[in-house]
């Protein structure tokens, strides 16, 4: 297995060759943040100059090419990601977040508006109720006052009528009482005239008054 030739490159550089090779890679300035500066110090220990049957991942002959193309492709990837792809995705995400926030804010504003409308409606309702109550109380008071006034008027009217009637009654009574004497005199005169003959009305009157005492 070990004797098999894996590397297909015809030449395998010696250690000195590789040092100059890597330095040459650097001389070309592949990339600003190329980390290969430290690489050769780390991997130099594994060098096995003259072996053509090295394990491919440990074959230093392939290192310069891999480093160069890694630097090129990674730099390209970094540029593409940082300048093209990521800002686009980031702006999409930000836009979505902004839209969600704006929608939430609008929904919140709408809810507040609704709350305000409900509050103003309730206020108006309460006002209307209070107004209705006050109107009812007012009209009740007015009616009661009117009623009281009319009743008072009726009562006084009634009272005058009653007192007038009473006065008339008393008058009639006294008049009647006064007539009673005359009736008694006439009756007595008539009775006496039937029994004893004609008597003078004066004597009858005196006798009645005497009886009446």
């Amino acid at each position: 297995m070990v004797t098999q030739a894996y590397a297909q490159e015809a030449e395998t550089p010696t250690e000195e060759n590789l040092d100059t090779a890597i330095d040459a890679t650097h001389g070309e300035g592949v990339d600003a943040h190329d980390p290969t500066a430290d690489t050769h110090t780390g991997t130099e220990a594994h060098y096995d100059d003259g072996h053509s049957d090295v394990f491919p991942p440990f074959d230093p002959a392939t290192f310069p090419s891999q480093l160069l193309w890694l630097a090129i492709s990674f730099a390209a990837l970094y540029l593409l990601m940082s300048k093209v792809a990521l800002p686009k995705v980031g702006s999409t995400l930000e836009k979505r977040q902004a839209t969600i926030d704006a929608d939430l804010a609008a929904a919140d504003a709408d809810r507040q508006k609704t709350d305000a409308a409900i509050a103003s409606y309730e206020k108006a309702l309460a006002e209307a109720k209070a107004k209705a109550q006050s109107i009812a109380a007012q009209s009740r008071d007015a009616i009661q006052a009117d009623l009281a006034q009319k009743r008072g008027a009726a009562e006084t009217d009634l009272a005058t009528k009653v007192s007038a009637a009473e006065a008339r009654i008393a008058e009639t009574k006294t008049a009647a009482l006064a007539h009673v004497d005359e009736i008694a005199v006439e009756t007595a005169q008539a009775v006496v005239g039937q029994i004893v003959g004609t008597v003078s009305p004066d004597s009858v009157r005196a006798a009645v008054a005497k009886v009446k005492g």
Partner: protein
Amino acid sequence: MAGTDPIHQFVIYDLFPIHLGDEAAGTALNLSFTNSALFMVVTVAVLTGFMVLSASRSALVPSRFQLAGELTYSFVANMLRSSAGKEGMKFFPFVFSLFGFVLVANLLGMFPYFFTVTSHIIVTAALALLVISVVILYGFFRHGIKFLKLFVPAGVPAYVLPIVVPIEIISFLSRPISLSVRLFGNILAGHITLKVFSGFVVSLGALGALGWLGALLPLIMTVAITALELLVAVVQAYVFAVLTSMYLNDAVHPSH
């Protein structure tokens, strides 16, 4: 033999040879466009295509495809924000590129006959060293000499510091090694295991009817390992990105 050789899948060969320097003069330099380079470019193309296409409609109510891109975006963004805070978000394109590159490279490598970019230590080491250099450079740029407080944990008595500080420095220096070797080793080991088990299928199948029956077992194993490797591909990309975020957090907030 090449069909069942578990190492053959990692061989790099030239597609467009670019040989610089003079071999005789000892300055030979092979910068050829290899199969590895091809798959790096494919990785970049796939990731960029995915992100750009998914973001192209930018609808308010996303389609499934758009949502996939946005979920990837917010997944990495949340990971970075929770590890490195709001200040660390300036590294978001960097972390996203790393995560996406490793993830897509790992997943592309799961296709048969495809080359796995991350199965080569030089690639993972370059990425890890890139992360650590960004951490060190930004740390010193942002905090100056105060960045060295990273190695002095707060609240540790002065007489313990001679022990603690070297440990912290060693642990810091071992970060790029563990970061690169973890990714490399996982991918390499997974692919070798897959190839070994599928090799068993081939070699048992050559034995005739009984061999066909026996080949069922490694076949089932291959299917199971493929599923495991898909998980490992995603988990390793996630771990790479999480560790990058945590190391960047050290650069942003050095005193811990």
